[in-house]
Structure formats: structure tokens, C-alpha cells
């Protein structure tokens, strides 16, 4: 009997706590579930307080949502994006907002999981989001793009590099796509005759790495580059690179192409030095941050070249101001994710101003206006100058090649 009563109560509590998520359903409920009922308004209250930025609430604000991993293995990227966005929002609000309207930012965690990312998106929708900046990582971004397309919500991803992230006309990106990076790096190597024999090491478990490598390989033949050795590693097996480096060395490669992140790259560089193998090293934007790896001998990275959207020690005034603000606030040098996110908020501002969006418009109307505005704006930011967007969502910007000279990255 006790068991049955328990089950009944749990079932009741369950359905009512489900209903309680509706927010406004509190009043209509039967008195049976008084526990769940008292919880409901409290929960709704907490949700309203969640946004990180709370500008003076005199009237309406533009509600910009952000999604990215702030916990879990990919949290470094999500946190950087969140911080970059926060700085941009603070700046814009201090300067009077978008067309005189302040912005409110709400950043939700997705743990780098498509399912959680969609949950985060739905949470933001309940909050009343008008424009989405996100998701930070590719696969979650693809899943969210499906939803934003259904709802006609404007989406700008700072760092979703996979091709399908922007397959719908409501989605745009700030960064280069994976194939674009592979293509540009092959072109750069070919046009500057850096090498004809190239070895590639890539992370076969990472779509980012595979995507770049495939495009690089496709373009290599056009540029007279011969790929003499390719070695794959996976996320579960990324500490020992001796065979991969040995393979490249034996094949006589003059250049080692490394389309993956800097943590693994530091190990590859250390292994090359151990085997006294000194080819040219060429990386992609994931290489950004290699000099900050702990216990890594920065001299090994000397002359390393990589594609980067953003160089923190650039002389550019905007970059300088961003970097100093970021350092002051978070006590670290911003990486490309933070820079992309910072630019994203300004792009949203530029597109909104171009489209003449007002705060009382709903998300779908804003999206329709911004879609056309995006293709007509030219944007100067910290990740490039004179950036314009195709209707397909891809940005047009010049790739930037950085070489490490004397312990710091210098734009070539």
C-alpha cells in the first residue's frame, strides 16, 4: 500500500513539476501538489535573474543569446566566447546601445553536446531571445541551426566551422569554414613555394581536423604539393606522436602540416625536436595559443607558421583596446574564440543598425530584416578588416598567416 501511495505521489509530483516549467501555470493547479506548486514560482524567478548582464532596466532591451560549452572538455572555447561577448556588450551599452537601445546578454552552457545545445536554445527562447550568437562548437551548432531555421531566428556563430553550420539562410558565421582553411593553407604553401613534399598529421576523431585535411588534400594536387605521409591520431590516443613523426621524417617531408589544436601540436613539436627532425611547420587557427602551453619550450615553436584570424599583439587600435580590457578583467590574453565572439556582437550591432531593427519587433521579423542587412554590410573588426558576408552565410575576409618570431606571433 505504501509503495502504491509513493508511486502515485511521485507521479503527481512529476507531472506537476513538469507543468510548473510552464511558468505561468502555477495558479490553475489542484491543491494536491502543494510542494511542487511552491517551487514553481521560485524557479521562474531564478530563471529571470540568470542573464549575466543586467543593464538599467528602463524599458525594453535587445535580448541577445549565446550558447557554448562552459563546462566539460571544450569549456575553454565556450568561456572565451562568453567573455568576449561580455566585453563587447559592456562597451556597446556604455556607448549608448544599438540605436539607443541597451543590450542584454544571456549565455547558456551546452557542454559541447548537440542535445544540450538544443535545450540551451529552448531555454533562451523562453527567455525571449531575439538574436542568437552561437553555438561555439560545430556539431551542436548544426543541431541548433536546424531549430533556428524552423523558428526563423537570426543566428551568427563565432566559431562553428563545419560547412553545415550555416546551411540555412538565417545562419552566418564569423570564422573561416573548415574547407576554407584547408584550401587557403594549401594555396599559401603552393603560391609561396614553401614545400612540395608535405606530411600531414591530423586528428581523425575531430571533424574540425578532418574537414580541414580533406580540403587541403583536394587543393594540394592543384598546387603541385605531394602529400608523402599522413598519420591520424584520435582523441583517445593523443600523447605519443613518435611513429607519426618518424613516418614524416622517413618520407622526407619538407613541411609538416598540422590541422589540429595547440595542445597536441606542442607534443608533436617536442617529438620532432627529440628526433632532430626540422621541417617547416604549418598549422591552422587551432594553433593559436601554443606559446601559452605550460612546460613547453617556446623556442621549439620558432618559425612555426599558422593561419590565425586574430593576433593579440597587433598594433591595431581596436585589438589593443580589446586585449587590454580582456586582460584587465580576466587576467589572461584573449584567444581567437574571444576575438570572434567580440566581433560577433559588433556584427549583430552593425546589421541591426543597417536593417533599422527596433526592439519591439519579434525574433522572426528581426531575422528577416537582418538576413538582407548582413549581405550589405562591410565590417571592420579585430578579426579582419572589410569583412562582408555572402547570402550563404560565409564571410569574405583575407586569411592572415602568422609566424612565430622571437617568442611571439608576427603577422606575415
Amino acid at each position, binding site marked *: 500500500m505504501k509503495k502504491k501511495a509513493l508511486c502515485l505521489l511521485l507521479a503527481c509530483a512529476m*507531472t506537476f513539476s513538469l507543468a510548473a516549467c510552464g511558468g505561468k501555470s502555477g495558479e490553475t493547479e489542484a491543491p494536491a501538489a502543494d510542494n511542487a506548486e511552491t517551487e514553481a514560482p521560485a524557479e521562474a524567478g531564478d530563471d529571470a535573474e540568470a542573464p549575466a548582464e543586467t543593464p538599467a532596466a528602463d524599458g525594453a532591451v535587445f535580448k541577445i543569446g549565446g550558447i557554448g560549452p562552459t563546462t566539460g572538455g571544450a569549456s575553454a572555447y565556450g568561456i572565451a566566447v562568453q567573455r568576449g561577448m561580455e566585453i563587447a556588450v559592456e562597451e556597446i551599452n556604455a556607448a549608448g546601445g544599438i540605436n539607443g537601445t541597451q543590450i542584454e546578454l544571456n549565455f547558456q552552457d551546452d557542454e559541447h553536446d548537440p542535445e544540450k545545445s538544443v535545450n*540551451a536554445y529552448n531555454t533562451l527562447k523562453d527567455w525571449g531571445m531575439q538574436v542568437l550568437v552561437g553555438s561555439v562548437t560545430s556539431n551542436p551548432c548544426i543541431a541548433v541551426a536546424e531549430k533556428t531555421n524552423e523558428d526563423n531566428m537570426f543566428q551568427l556563430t563565432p566559431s562553428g566551422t563545419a560547412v*553545415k553550420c550555416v546551411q540555412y539562410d538565417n545562419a552566418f558565421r564569423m570564422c573561416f569554414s573548415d574547407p576554407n582553411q584547408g584550401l587557403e593553407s594549401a594555396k599559401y604553401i603552393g603560391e609561396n613555394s614553401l614545400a612540395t613534399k608535405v606530411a600531414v598529421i591530423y586528428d581523425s576523431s575531430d571533424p574540425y581536423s578532418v574537414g580541414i585535411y580533406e580540403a587541403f588534400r583536394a587543393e594540394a594536387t592543384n598546387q603541385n604539393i605531394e602529400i608523402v605521409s599522413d598519420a591520424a591520431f584520435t*582523441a583517445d590516443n593523443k600523447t605519443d606522436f613518435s611513429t607519426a613523426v618518424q613516418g614524416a621524417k622517413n618520407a622526407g617531408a619538407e613541411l609538416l602540416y598540422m590541422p589540429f589544436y595547440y595542445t597536441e601540436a606542442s607534443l608533436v613539436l617536442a617529438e620532432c625536436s627529440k628526433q632532430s627532425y626540422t621541417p617547416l611547420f604549418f598549422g591552422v587557427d587551432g594553433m593559436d595559443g601554443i606559446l601559452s602551453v605550460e612546460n613547453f619550450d617556446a623556442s621549439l615553436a620558432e618559425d612555426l607558421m599558422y593561419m590565425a584570424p586574430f593576433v593579440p599583439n597587433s598594433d591595431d587600435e581596436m585589438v589593443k583596446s580589446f586585449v587590454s580590457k580582456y586582460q584587465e578583467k580576466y587576467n589572461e590574453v584573449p584567444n581567437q574564440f574571444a576575438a570572434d565572439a567580440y566581433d560577433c556582437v559588433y556584427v549583430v550591432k552593425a546589421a541591426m543598425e543597417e536593417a533599422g531593427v527596433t526592439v519591439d519587433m519579434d525574433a522572426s521579423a528581426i531575422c528577416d530584416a537582418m538576413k538582407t542587412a548582413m549581405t550589405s554590410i562591410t565590417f571592420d573588426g579585430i578579426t579582419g578588416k572589410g569583412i562582408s558576408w555572402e547570402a550563404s552565410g560565409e564571410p569574405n575576409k583575407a586569411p592572415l598567416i602568422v609566424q612565430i618570431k622571437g617568442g611571439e606571433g608576427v603577422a606575415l
Partner: protein
Amino acid sequence: MKMKALSKNTKSNLITYGMVILAYVVMEILTRAGMVSSLLQGLLVPLCTYVILAVSLNLVVGISGELSLGHAGFMCVGAFASAFFSNYTKEAITVSGLRFFLALLIGAAVAALFGFLIGIPVLRLRGDYLAIVTLAFGEIIKNVINVIFLGHDSKGFHISFKDAFSMNMEPDGEVLINGPQGITGTPHDSSFLIGIILILITLFIVINMVNSRTGRAIMAIRDNRIAAESVGIHITKYKLLAFTVSASLAGVAGVLYAHNLSTLAAQPKNFGYNMSIMILVFVVLGGIGNIRGSIIAAVVLTLLPELLRSLNDYRMLMYAIVLIATMIFTSSPGGQAFRERYSLKVLFGQKKQEKEAE
């Protein structure tokens, strides 16, 4: 009068079915009335997925008494097989119901096949050894799927275990399974109604199996292997049967999962051992062998992190604390004594009085 004639078991099972149907009706009414947040609407299908997973794992862990840690692997197989089918026939079959039904059959069949094949060697082991080997198999499935590249062009199918490039496809070819990038563009065929129907089917299969001759044989093996063998119960057959049915149902959950999101990639997060452990947590928290408990635990533990979103980064910490507290409350001797003293019967009685007073 008629209710009294029903056995205690049947009544309990009817309550379980009724609970699921009630949850559906309530949610449906609230959705129609516009009282459900988009977060919760988005969570309905994942909730169904986890409920099916928890119930199906309970068949192995609770009824058959074997500790399996590779359940996410079967879900992964079902998800990929069905997503591959749906993507391939996206143009050919335009009726989403029919396509989903076929995908469901394929997902369940492929997962059952894997469950059968893996079960043959694995079920020779017992206890901790079985747990470790199933854990390994789950990881192997995930990793193998991560190296499969499968494409289709005018000349037929191409497969490679290296990269998409070495499939040498015609220019008109389309890569269907793209290694670690997985499958993208799966049609969104899952819905809450389908999820609920699948839960009911899962419950029907599991509950009827448990209450049948087969179920009794399986439980006899769990309780005393030697005694069961001595009365002529075919041990391997029954253990394998439970394992295969459970794998197949996990495959069904995978189908539901794959058709809810447009992107499917075998990452540690969704198909790794973390997921297997999470499903096991649902089962253990709900009570090993208790089907209804599994359902409730799966729903509560899936909702919890989402409802705690307002705590930002502290929510996973809270989740862990709630988990520990619940485990202590339900399973430790102290917690049990507490529950007996303040049993729900007493509380219920008080509540009734309060209600009357109101």
C-alpha cells in the same frame, strides 16, 4: 470488485502504463493550452529516449542480474543504422511515418544483432568481468563507428575506414556517414507521441517477458544459477535472450534520439561510457528490477540539470549532490529507517486532513 480479482502484479503493471498515458495526456493538454515552455517541449523526446533506455537496461541489470556497462553502444548502433537508412531514403520515401517505422525496425534489428553477437562471448563471464567487457565493447562500437566513411554515388556504395577522400567517389556522390563528423541532416521524424508509443511498447515487451515462463527462467538463473541449471533451464539461451531484447530496445531509443537531432556523431558525451553509466544510474536510483522506478528516475534525472540552469555552472555540482542525497535516502540503512518512521502513509493521511481543513 473486478480490480480485486486482478493479481497484485497486474495492478502494479496497470499503474505503470496508466502513469505513462497520464503523463502524455497532461503534457498534451498543457501544450495545447500553451502552458509549456519551449525548453520542456524540446525535452519531451529526449525524456522518452532515456526512459526507454532505463527500462531496457533494467531488463539486463534487474531481471537478468548481469551488470552491463555497454548499453550506450547498442543505442549508438541503432541510432547510426536508422539515421543512415533515413538519410539514404529521404527522397525515396516522403511519408515520414512510414520512413520512421522502417528506420525503427532497422535500428532495432541491427542493435539486436550486435547484442546477440556480443552476448555470445560476453555472457560467459559473470559479475565484474562482464561489466568490464561490456564497457570495452561499448567503447569499441563507438570507435569503430568513428572511422566508418560511407558514401553513395551513381556507381553504388563506397566504404572506407581511412578518410572520405579514399572512397574515390564520383563528383555526384554524397557522403552519408562521414567518420567522426557522423551523419548530418537526418529528417526530424521523432515526436512526443511516437516516443510515448515506443515507451508503451517497451513496457509491454519487458513486463510481459518478466511475467512469462521466460522471465521466470531468467530470474531463476539470476537467483541461483546451479539450481536453475539442475532443473533443466538452458542458461545461455535465456541470458542471451534477455541481453538481445535489451540491446534491441536500446537500439529503439537510439532511433528516437537520432531522428530528434539533425546531427549525429559518436562522441564520448552521447555514446561513450558516461552515457552507459548514466543509464545505469537511472536503473540503480529507480531500484534495480523496478520498472516503474526506472521511468521516474530517468525523467527526474534528465530534467534536473535543465531545471537547475539558473544556477549556471554550479548546476552540475548540485546535480551530483542531489544524486548522492537521493542514493543515501533510498538505499542506506539510516535513510530506510527514516523513511519508515515518516512513511508516506502517515504523510498522506495528514495531507488528506489538511485538504479537508482547507
